[in-house]
């Protein structure tokens, strides 16, 4: 069996989990295996949705002890499920929870682990993973020496594919409690927008923004086209009050949106490493020699303080983002 650890949010399957399931289905078909979807929590209402993405079996570990996320408890639930089902491949989306729990579960299973992968295939019945390393400056094909093979899938990379599965429900026991650590509180950031790593469109600003307050024009453009605002390391380190969570680059977030608009970003290696996986890159910079233009599908040489507001205006005129 290929088992996919899935996450629910407000009773709905999270998109990165749907992506991991879709990829799991593809791998299961390629290797003649069953696909299982695994859920854990106080309630797993909504888990039936996994059948839409090809799950043959839907496993739920439900109970009050799992109400808050606990690394060790969730890792134990996942590892137990892998053992019970004799699964040889374990997938999870590379979300905050997925990246926290998957390596712990892998160690519990004496399994190799490939994180944040952008490609998966079955070669002679074994999993093979493609993953960016050096923040995307190179790609590593990774193979496994262990019996169980664990990988997390990078959000926004694997297409969601609907395919009906039997979705046979199966209940797993929830652990008794007394965990080593547990999440006590979630501090949501103002706005509560999607994370950069999951965003489809990113509007990013660099040193050329000159001040944190000027990011307002990027917010306006992002709002108009349904995007999220990011920043380069130069901007975050400039003391403009921008949080590190906005930083795109090798020492920040590595992102793969459909569209990345770089405003006033020269294109330092460490920044490029974090965003070169974007499908389409737009560069807006007054320096025609800026290295970012080498990467850009579309470039505008000009003053971003003139161009960005024009883009916002044009987006509204063309009715972009209003769907």
């Amino acid at each position, binding site marked *: 069996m290929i088992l996919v650890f899935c996450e629910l949010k407000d009773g709905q399957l999270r998109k990165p989990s749907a992506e991991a399931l879709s990829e799991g289905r593809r791998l299961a078909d390629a290797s003649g295996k069953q696909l299982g979807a695994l859920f854990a929590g106080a309630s797993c209402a909504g888990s039936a949705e996994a059948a839409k993405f090809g799950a043959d079996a839907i496993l739920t570990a439900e109970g009050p002890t799992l109400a808050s996320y606990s*690394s*060790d408890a969730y*890792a134990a639930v996942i590892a137990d499920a892998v053992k019970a089902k004799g699964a040889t491949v374990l997938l999870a989306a590379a979300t*905050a*929870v997925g*990246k*926290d*729990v998957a*390596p712990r579960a892998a*160690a519990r299973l004496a*399994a*190799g*682990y490939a*994180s*944040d992968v952008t490609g998966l295939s079955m070669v002679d019945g074994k999993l*093979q993973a493609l993953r960016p*390393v*050096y*923040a995307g400056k*190179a*790609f*590593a*094909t990774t*193979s*496994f020496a*262990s019996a169980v093979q664990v990988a997390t899938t990078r959000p926004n990379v694997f297409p969601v594919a609907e395919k009906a599965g039997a979705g046979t429900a199966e209940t797993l026991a929830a652990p008794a409690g007394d965990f*080593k*650590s*547990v*999440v*006590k*509180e*979630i*501090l949501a*950031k103002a706005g*509560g*927008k*999607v994370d950069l790593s999951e965003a489809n*469109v990113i509007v990013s600003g660099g040193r050329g923004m000159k001040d944190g307050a000027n990011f307002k024009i990027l917010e306006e453009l992002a709002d108009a086209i349904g995007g999220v605002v990011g920043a380069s390391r130069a901007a975050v380190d400039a003391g403009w009050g921008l949080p590190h*969570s906005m930083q795109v680059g*090798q*020492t920040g977030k*590595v992102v793969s949106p459909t569209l990345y608009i770089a405003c006033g970003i020269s294109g330092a*290696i460490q920044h490029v490493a974090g965003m*070169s996986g974007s*499908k*389409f890159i*737009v560069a807006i910079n007054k320096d025609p020699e800026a290295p970012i233009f*080498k990467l*850009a*599908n*579309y*470039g*505008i040489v000009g003053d971003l303080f003139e*161009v960005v507001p*024009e*883009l916002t205006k044009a*987006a509204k005129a*063309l009715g*972009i983002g209003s769907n």
Partner: protein
Amino acid sequence: MKILVALKQVPDTESRIKVAADGRSLDPADVKWITSPYDEYALEEAIRIKEGKGAEVVALSVGSDAAKDVLKNALALGADSAVLLKGDGQGDAYQVAQMIAAYAKDKGFDLILCGNKGLGGDNAAMGPMLAELLGVAQANVVVKLELGDGTFKAEREIEVGSEIVEGALPAVITAQKGLNEPRYASLKGIMAAKKKTIEELEAAPATAGAQVSVLALPPERPAGRRMEGEPAAQALALLQALKDEAKVF
């Protein structure tokens, strides 16, 4: 309190990556090696705990003789002692976790700190694997850490902000940028570090988990197109191209 800080030697962020002749590893020529930046936050946190409530800080790295630079720097910054586990510290996170677990398991560490990921390998896996192998608590991507009496409270970054994780010590905590502002080594620290020796041990044998079979550079991006004219015309042309050619919207 006894703290272990695991440090990894990695290529500098400005390094251009070249593939070695074996086709699956990094060509080390022209690479400048540094301490992984996230590990610097881990070390700084350990030193601050030492300065605050008192602690013994042991710096550890898995690698060849070259990794001694990382340990010398840690000693100069305030680590009390340093251990080099001789083995492949660049490869499989599962193997590195086993080596460190074998070293740490009977030594009574209350806290193990490391970066949330080693820059370059970008696995973000060694810390949680080590926590599992030692059977202790974990908190990853931590931007704030408070220690109580046998307990910890950590704020860690998640998609929509942050969350508070509470747990029991011993624990593995992996550091994120924002946890603190690492100091520079003082001349006094550098001189004092010269008197300290680095303990060298053979790393324990470890079972392989995942290995890189091919390392390749990403494909070149196709040449782009520049939008001409006044800002308004450029903006309109760009959005039309994104809509009609790229079909982004």
